[in-house]
């Protein structure tokens, strides 16, 4: 790895971070201006996206996944800016603070994706998390306050865990670097390997909350219900990209190792299976749209983790591809929810596909992708690539994990079909109030759906990029 490559990898983070400062500066100089914050924010994010492309791909094996995750974080931030509602922009501090916080969390996420040592990782993770807490809290409602508090407490506890894990990592390997070389240095010394595995497990438990893995998931439903839909979009995309980047960074040293790590494998598999099965089971009982999205997120987090259980580079690629598909589909759902502000009950979507074919159709397609059923082919391909690493490694127990995951597939289908039934049902006779047309959600909805449809026809576009 060259120094320039490492610096270039932090380019997107720097652009987003400077953009946040710029937004606050302009606001301080000209506090009267209105409406420019969104556009400046989007311009900054486009700049960040351009700088992602500049990361030299050669000479750095992890560059592609870094690029994909940074792109996901940046695009997710654009979605968030477009989806955030009037209330969120009218919160204390006004639109400037809202946009600046989104840019700050993007900077943190992009920085996590570029980290290759524990120190940068810890700092970047905090930068990615704290602005989200603020975004939730700023909404000002009582529920949002509670949700923000719960998120804050979880993230502080996790921070403590991560610091302990980082310290253990340093004492085990004698370096802060999260690289294969660091791991190679201790292979053969049993105590240090055990300590290293312990460090990984503690680091992962600290990061797990951000990916909504059980048992660190409790904040998720609360925040999804109480926060603004745009902020939920941040949690679904930017925040998840940061979390997955961190998980991969922690696991990467062990990926090139020939050493079998049963403790790590079994631990990850247990968490992945519990999360996907319990998440889907609880999602079955949800009656509110965002409650269902929240528990579906938890279940899908298990699927994101599943391929990583194989502790192989192919698993990391599969996890990233899976996350992209999940994020695109969930963003489409959130855009549909944002169009119908205030209608939280699932029953409010009754017959939507007839009343509003565009929104209803897009949401139906997104649900099929999440369920992994054609015509949402890309969702099915995502399931295939998530299961594949479990079958390609020599580890005997992994195919059993794959068979257990089959249960989760059925549960997931039941969850999403429940909402789909409501969408395609005959609308009630009372003419539903036409939802006010907001441009932001509508553009996001169309863009996300087009992405999903294109990827369903040509999944290679995503898979070839992630490789």
């Amino acid at each position, binding site marked *: 790895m060259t120094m320039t490559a490492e610096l270039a990898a932090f380019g997107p983070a720097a652009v987003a971070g400077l953009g946040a400062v710029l937004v606050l500066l302009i606001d301080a100089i000209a506090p009267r201006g209105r409406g420019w914050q969104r556009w400046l924010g989007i311009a900054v994010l486009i700049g960040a996206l351009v700088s992602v492309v500049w990361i030299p791909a050669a000479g750095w094996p992890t560059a592609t996944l870094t690029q994909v995750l940074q792109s996901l974080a940046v695009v997710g931030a654009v979605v968030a800016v477009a989806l955030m509602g009037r209330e969120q922009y009218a919160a204390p501090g006004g639109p400037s603070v809202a946009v600046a916080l989104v840019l700050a969390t993007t900077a943190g996420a992009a920085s996590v994706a570029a980290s290759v040592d524990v120190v940068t990782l810890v700092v970047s993770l905090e930068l990615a998390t704290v602005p989200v807490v603020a975004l939730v809290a700023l909404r000002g409602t009582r529920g949002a306050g509670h949700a923000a508090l719960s998120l804050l407490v979880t993230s502080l506890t996790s921070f403590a865990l991560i610091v302990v894990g980082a310290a253990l990592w340093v004492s085990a390997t004698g370096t802060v670097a999260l690289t294969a070389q660091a791991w190679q240095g201790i292979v053969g010394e049993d105590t240090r390997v055990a300590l290293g595995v312990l460090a990984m497990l503690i680091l992962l438990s600290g990061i797990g909350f951000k990916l909504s893995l059980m048992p660190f998931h409790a904040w998720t439903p609360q925040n999804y219900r109480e926060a603004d839909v745009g902020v939920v979009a941040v949690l679904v995309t930017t925040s998840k990209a940061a979390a997955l980047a961190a998980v991969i960074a922690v696991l990467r040293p062990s990926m090139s190792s020939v050493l079998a790590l049963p403790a790590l494998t079994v631990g990850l598999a247990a968490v992945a299976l519990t999360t996907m099965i319990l998440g889907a089971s609880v999602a079955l009982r949800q009656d509110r749209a965002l409650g269902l999205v929240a528990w579906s997120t938890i279940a899908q987090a298990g699927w994101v983790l599943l391929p990583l259980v194989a502790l192989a580079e192919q698993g990391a690629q599969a996890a990233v591809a899976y996350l992209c598909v999940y994020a695109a589909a969930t963003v489409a759902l959130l855009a549909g929810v944002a169009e119908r502000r205030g209608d939280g009950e699932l029953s409010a979507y009754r017959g939507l596909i*007839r009343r509003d*074919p565009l929104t209803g*159709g897009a949401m139906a397609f997104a649900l*099929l992708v999440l369920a992994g*059923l*054609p*015509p949402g*082919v890309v969702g*099915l*391909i995502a*399931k*295939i*690539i998530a*299961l*594949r690493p479990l*079958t*390609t490694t020599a580890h005997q127990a992994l*195919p059993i994990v*794959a*068979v257990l995951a*089959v*249960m989760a*597939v*059925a549960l997931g*289908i*039941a969850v999403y*079909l429940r909402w789909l*039934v409501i969408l*395609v049902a*005959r609308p009630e006779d009372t003419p539903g109030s036409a939802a006010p047309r907001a441009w932001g959600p509508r553009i996001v909805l169309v863009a996300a759906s087009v992405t999903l449809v294109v990827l369903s026809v040509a*999944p*290679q576009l995503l*898979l*070839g990029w992630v*490789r």
Partner: protein
Amino acid sequence: MVLTAAVALPFLVGAVLLGLGDRVSAPVARAAAGVAVIASAGLVAAGWYLDAPERFSWIPELGIDWSLRLDGLNVAFVLLTAAVGILIVGHTAYEMPQGGAPASYLGAVLIAQAGALTAFLAGDALLFFVAFEIVLVPMWFVIRRFGDGRVPEVRDEASTRFVLYTAVGSTLMLVGILLLAVRAGSTDFDRLVGALPGQDAATVAIVLLLTVGLCVKIPVFPLHTWLPPAHTIAPTGGSVLLAAVLLKLGTYGVIRLPLASAPDAFAFISPWLALAGAFAVVWGGLICLAETDLKRLIAYSSVAHMGFVALAVASGSSLGVQAAIYTSVAHGIVSAFLFILVGGLKHRWGSADLTVSRPALREVSPALGFFLVLGMAAGMGLPGLAVFWGEFLTLYAAWSPGGGRSQVVFLACVVVAAIGAALGAAYTTRVLRAVWVGDAVRTKTGLPVRHDDASRTERALLGVLGLALVALGVAPGILLTATAGVGALLGGLP
């Protein structure tokens, strides 16, 4: 490109019809769907004539090629699927299912048919899996939306059960395919033939995953419990599609995947499959003796027929595979015939309850009565009609099973299945006595009898299917010649 067009046409027309929904009138939708299915069948026939496999790179990352071709194993299934598509669209001229826009119904049926065609034509195991899954949602929609349960919860339960059972089965199959692909180094069906020799634990586990997954779809006892509610609730066209096409995906999959790729390991588990099949024949027959809903009775007779298919596949010889294909095609025709007939009766009667006394069909509607006798006779395996040869060949093949199989178990299965086949005669007479012979006195006592005999559509559809039953019953050589090469295709089966 011919086969690709044969698949793409019904898919695209179906998607358009589904998208337009109630903005299209029933005749226009029917005309569009009719053109699509007929053109698709023509393209399939052209593809058979041209005999040119098609292959494009689709997802190189996973090694999935868009590869379609026709050979001795799938040609019967492909032609059956194409023909059933025409029948279902034609049947809407007699009865359009209630519950939503006609275009939505026809659109969903076309997409399901396109998915099934793709699955049968696929030359790649993962493409087969993806196509297998395409069928799920449209079929779920047809049962959920157009099913004839008066209570929505009943439709909901039947359709959800269908999707969940099938999805669990197909995902187990997916895990099996992925493991198979890793060890064989390919997902191409041609290269999978005989790819995993031997009976080591890992190979047996893979074969078990594939077989159990596909047995949900066939369905093989005791994984059949999704079938009766789905068949009973689905509209006539949906039941026909389910019985004549979708169940065959399971049979075809078992032949293509575990039997072809790991013959030794399949031989290891096949006694269990044979036992399940033989048991299903008796079980289905016994339930048919007691079942009071005619549509449900036909569904359970499907379970019995599929027991024969399982026994035939399990026997693992070249003749066994031919018998499985023969029984599948014959069952496809018989079940389409009976579901169209019973759907019509249910439409006239308001229910399909056998305990309600009704005027004798023989007196009231002689044409329907004749068709009922023909259909039930064919279903029980009367010589001279198609099913007979399927059952006969199955028992014959199981009498001398392929290599590595216990002779004793298979002989026992033959005896049990033969007894089960005799039950077919018993429930056939039961149905005919209840419906066809009927109570002549009551007919004269002024019950509200509507003397509506078979409509022109019904006569045409049942006539064609009846001719096919007789043709395959009199000249089994038609299908046996077409499938003669299966032994060689499967790597030289005995």
